[in-house]
């Protein structure tokens, strides 16, 4: 049993230490907002926060996260009230929506450390998260809106 803190709650996962955090979250803990896209760290659909840093959860072993603080999209805010979530709705960003948990978690890390990022800083920070529907221009607008409106 591996213990960690997920979205502010202590949880135990009955899985091997080498199990990717992604599958522990999705299938063992049924927090399915975090998505599987490539399993190899290329796409970023699986981004969550581990001890305050955005990580690709498919590349983090559960054992490495043991004892750590994990935040998933389900724990970003209690009621979708995070400025990014509100901005994502205002800009009507998602299309298929599959990558956007990862997009929002990646963006949340940026705004945490840089409340007023430039366009270049946004692009550089977000470049690791793929969106196959091509919502990139709206993602940039939404991050700028969240930075503006807080």
């Amino acid at each position, binding site marked *: 049993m591996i213990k960690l803190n997920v979205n502010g709650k202590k949880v135990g996962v009955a899985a091997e230490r080498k199990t990717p955090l992604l599958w522990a979250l999705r299938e063992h803990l049924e927090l399915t*907002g975090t998505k599987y*896209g490539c399993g190899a760290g290329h796409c970023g659909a699986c981004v969550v926060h581990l001890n305050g840093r955005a990580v690709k959860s498919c590349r983090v072993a559960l054992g490495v996260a043991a004892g750590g603080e994990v935040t998933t999209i*389900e724990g970003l805010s209690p009621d979708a009230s995070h400025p990014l*979530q509100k901005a994502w709705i205002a800009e009507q960003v998602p299309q298929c929506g599959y*990558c956007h948990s990862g997009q929002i978690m990646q963006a949340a890390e940026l705004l945490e450390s840089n409340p007023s990022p430039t366009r270049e800083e946004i692009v550089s920070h977000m470049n690791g998260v793929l969106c196959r529907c091509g919502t990139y*221009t709206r993602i940039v607008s939404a991050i700028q809106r969240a930075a503006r409106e807080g």
Partner: protein
Amino acid sequence: MQTNDAKTHQISRREFLGGAAGLTFAASIAPGGAWLVSDANAKSTEHEIGAWVRITPDNRITIITPAAEMGQGSMTGVPVALAEELDADWSTVTLEMAPAEPEIYGYDRRGGRVMRITGSRAIRSYFTQVRLAGAQVRKALLNAAAEDWGVDATTLTTEPNTVVHAASGRRMTYGDIAAFANVPETMPAVTEADLKQPADFRLIGTPVDRADIPAKVDGSAMFSIDVQLPGMVYASTAHAPVHLAPPLKWNDAAVRKLPGVIDIVQLEHGVAVVADNFENVLAARKALKVEWQKGAAEGYDSEAALDERYKAVAGDKDTRAVAQAGDADAAFASAAKVYKADYRSDYGYHAQMEPLNAVARFNGAGDRVEIWEGTQSPGSSRASIAKALGFDRSQVIHHQMYMGGAFGRRSITDYTVEAALIARETKKPVKMIWTREEDLAFAMFRPQNLQCLEAALDDDGRIAGWRHCVIGDGDRLLYSGINIEDYYGVANRVIEQRGVSHGIRLKHWRAVAHPFNLFAIESLVDEMAADHDLDPFEFRRRHMAMTPKAKAVFDAVEALSDWHAPRPEGRALGLSVTERSGSLGAGVVEISLDRDRNRIRVHKVWAAIDGGIVVQPDMARANIESGIVYGMSSVLRERATMKAGAVVQSNFHDYQVLRMAEAPEEIQIEFMERNTPPTGLGEIGNPLIPAAVANAFYALTGKRLYHMPFTPERVSAALEA
């Protein structure tokens, strides 16, 4: 507007029809009969029926939405058209996803009804059908109010969710009516003449928020990959690297000993491992060593074939004429000048972000299966699952889920059939997920092709003759978008397709063949314009006999892009027409070239689109933005190849799709103001990109690109040519 809890996807028809007080308007499948029937009729009829609209005394309206949602917004857009004619207050509307019953929820197509959402078909196919239904419900409400007030129904009007009798000032909400009225035995007849004029639209043309978006920002939107069932186990399939080769033997005993492994299931074209959790599936899948029989693609080398064999086939007489008009031979024989060029395009992968997956659960008796999947075609998927299991359709209970991308891949649900077969064998609920590597290795590709074009100019310099031959595998997948008469008048033309066959799985990709066909057509047009030393717009106007519709979109994009204004140093513009699913447009891109890395960068895109009535402008815009980025991805990055019969690329590191750093900084879209019926907009964005980028590259460098994608190697070769 609200939606139901994302986790409840299936409406219970019995509940919907027989449940709470209020009015339920159901649909009958009786051919040619009234489309909507009463609740009472619905319950007594022998016909299969289903609810479409329900109005409850609390003045709320539920509309069943028939359009599969893959990000294009149609699950919201189609009900908007119904709500328009119903004169519904959109804030009182709740949407529910329709079950997989095309006889009830399908649109009319070739004498039947289908729910297949391909070819940008949702809005344009359902538009009139659901408007008539909305008008019919409104008329029933008017009649009920008229009877209650003792007035003539023709003296009544509606405002959102309200019937108004202007003469007496009386008003009644739809909810008030639902509290006392019954749905009439026979629904009032309506015809297209009863529908609103565009000037009277309250909802069509006015953006509403998409119903699915709130659940897509907090992780609650349910895709099939998210389904959790008690006692569920996990599976993943290994398919032969050479497509469709059946399995011969594998290290069964060794894999069965691995932790958590429950079963190994042989499939026609694969071997599936089943385990207690997905990490154990992945480990077992990795340890599984399968020896395969021969597949048709054995030994296939896609690059060598495109270089050598396709060119040989181009000279072959085994030709299928797709279209011809006039006398092309005569036009070429008497031509003042002939232009010729060959164009190539590589294989493309859909690369939807959600790897293909499905969940299946059988009942204890094994005579009923429940399916959770995301499909573009719920009706045919349900039928193919039933067929694979030897079941009647009624034995398949189908739950439609959101799709994490589709782009044409998900109108065939071979993956769901696999999940069902595995669940039957394993006798447990199964979540079957193809790994990304499997999704790519066993993909169904947009076919590679060679295109040979020739244009004949007459003595007046007008395009009098046109020959376009496309060579490749996949038949119909090769020649959509090849008919230039949709935008350019050329009296004498021959359009041909010559086949090869490689045994590689192929499928409709976003806009099917339009991207590469328009790449070839519009590249040649640009080459002729340059040879005449004419501005590309001017050349088209003088030499190409544009249709009025084409002329309008070209004029519009010329102004929108401020085409004639100077651009910054190192930037250049390129132009292309775009056409798909009844829509027509023209687009301009502004590019630069990173000469150290030979990478083209697209900075800005402008598009003027004629899509008829635009039901939801922001959703339409989002679709076109998406298509533009999808198109850029396909010409700047994406490339699949086969060696020794197997797909070479394995994941997003070597099958690269466009990232944010290469996305355009600005996309401007203008819709032509039209009162014509809506046409498709989901795939109008990407066909304009290949030629526009290649033509901009010429404007910037004086060199032509003839092979998409425009990889650094090809850019480098073009610059040195």
